[in-house]
């Protein structure tokens, strides 16, 4: 197996490209991070201070941005008056629940699709992924009508089910790739060594664990950030953070301070999650790419 020490050979072109990529990354970071920075800062500012902006071209005036007395009143407002703690809980349950269900069912289906050959397997596999080809809006109306007749609208189980409908095909598709990359010979060796079939499957799980971990995060992200399903299926009883935040925009009164704080509350958990599993996320998403 090749070692990880890549040999570099520098030419003028690669040098120029390297400078270009550094410049590109700097611009890109400013572009993506600035709004988040503004959000964070504004959530701790009084409204008056938040809207203080220097005149165009007045670079020296940029200091205004950092001149404020930090206040937690927006956060206070969110949790004391606007009931955000229950929305956070809704978001957590909906995202976590659908992610766990998708990954458990998805890995079982993916394992079978990867290991067993049967008639019509390719068609089945294509059908599974084709359910993700229609945009979500297209199925929204029938889905709503089905959910309403089942009394699932406005409930957490309903929302979990809706997210699972969308995450599961994706899970099967991605996880099958991970299982395909684990040679079946490893399970055969396990079985000859004295393992039962389920034990053999458990023995290869460490090999697909990074992939599964990474995929759980993708599922959580999808559900956590979703607005469409949450607004329509979850409306009322199962309000999640994005919907609750949207409701802070009222016709006469846009509550900027609370919106910024809600933005922070929504973003931070996902950032922490990303940090915690960063290592796995990277190995997980690239593992499928290399066949040895």
């Amino acid at each position, binding site marked *: 197996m090749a070692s990880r020490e890549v040999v570099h050979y520098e030419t003028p072109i690669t040098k120029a490209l390297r400078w270009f990529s550094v410049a590109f990354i700097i611009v890109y970071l400013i572009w993506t991070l600035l709004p988040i920075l503004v959000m964070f800062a504004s959530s701790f500012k009084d409204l008056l201070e938040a809207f203080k902006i220097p005149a165009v071209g007045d670079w020296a005036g940029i200091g205004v941005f950092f001149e404020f007395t930090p206040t937690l009143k927006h956060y206070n407002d969110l949790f004391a008056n606007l009931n955000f703690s229950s929305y956070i809980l809704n978001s957590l349950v909906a995202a976590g629940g659908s992610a766990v269900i998708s990954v458990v069912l998805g890995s079982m289906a993916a394992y079978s699709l990867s290991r067993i050959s049967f008639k019509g397997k390719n068609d089945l596999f294509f059908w599974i992924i084709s359910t993700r080809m229609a945009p979500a809006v297209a199925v929204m109306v029938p889905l709503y009508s089905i959910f309403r007749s089942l009394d699932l609208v406005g409930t957490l189980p309903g929302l979990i089910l809706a997210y699972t409908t969308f995450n599961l095909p994706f899970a099967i598709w991605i996880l099958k790739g991970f299982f395909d990359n684990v*040679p079946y010979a490893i399970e*055969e*060796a396990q*079985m*000859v*060594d*004295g*393992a039962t079939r389920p034990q053999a499957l458990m023995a290869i799980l460490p*090999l697909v664990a990074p992939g599964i971990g990474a995929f759980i995060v993708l599922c959580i992200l999808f559900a956590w950030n979703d607005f469409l399903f949450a607004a329509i299926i979850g409306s009322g009883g199962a309000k999640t953070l994005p919907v609750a935040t949207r409701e802070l925009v009222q016709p006469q009164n846009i509550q900027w301070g609370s919106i910024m704080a809600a933005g922070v509350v929504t973003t931070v958990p996902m950032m922490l999650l990303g940090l915690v599993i960063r290592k796995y996320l990277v190995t997980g998403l690239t593992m499928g790419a290399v066949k040895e």
Partner: protein
Amino acid sequence: MAKVSFRSVWKKYGELAAVKDLNIECADGTFLSILGPSGCGKSSTMRMIAGLEHISAGDILFDDQRINDMAPRDRDVAMVFENYALYPHKTVFENMANPLKLRGQSTDRIRERVNAAANLLEIGQLLRRRPQELSGGQKQRVAIGRAIVREPKLFLFDEPIAHLDAKLRAHMRGEIKHMQRTLGTTMIYVTHDQLEAMSMADLIAVMHDGELQQLGTPREVYNQPVNAWVAGFVGEPAMNFLTCEVQARRDDVLLTHSNFALPLLPQQVQRLNGHAAGPVRMGVRPDGLSITMRKPSEPVITGEIFVNELLGGDMIVDVQLADARIRVKTAPEFEGVPGEACYVTVNREKWHAFDVENGRAFF
């Protein structure tokens, strides 16, 4: 320990029959080698015994118990896989400990067994590494180690030392043979290397195109091949084949070729069994021939030296006949030079005749 029997075993992959009507009886404690060229169905046979491949037809029995429908773990075999099949996320130690762990052995016993196997295989210093940090030959030894930590009913070794260097291979041949002798465990050992089969096995099953050609001791397979294919596959350097005519002359029966006409021995005439005239394929191994530069008195084959190859203690001389070339084994002191005329005598005890059509051996 077990007796292994194959009763008309077939393996079909769709249309392709990889193993055809295999019948073998392998007594308890036997070292059986399955020998054949690439793609002849050796691994398929092994995988059927291990329970990794469905048996398309026929039965495999361990001690007269049919095992067709038994799960691999219940068959109590230990296998060395052709492709190693090591666990990539486990260290060498954990790889070798796995079969013991799955069977609930104590930690002390596991350590003791693994260390013993590692010492035997000279991989003691590698126990902490993972498979991707090993060379091919090291991986192969770990795979052997994983099989021999346990004392199973049956060992299945699928080309276990094909990736070792020549010296280590010779060493491992001895170690494996010795281990099998000491434990007395039945062993089925797949190889495409006839030297390996010859030197290790009690019994050799020669396979070709999914069919069992011959089942016999190494001596039988070497000295009495049942057909031209086995004769040509077993033995290095390979047997010489010449198409000859059988001709009756007065009280003799002669084998004639454009270069020679030699009488058959009486018992060989008997074995021809009615095939009194017509073409046969004559086969004789290089060590059944001898070569001289001076014409001897007995009947000889005349030819011209094509090339000499010195192989350490032996010399192989290629001799050009009118329409064929044969190889002769001789002593390294042989002084012939390419281009010179030479005389080859045949040890008629050691020659064979095969049917031209179906290759079956007359003698």
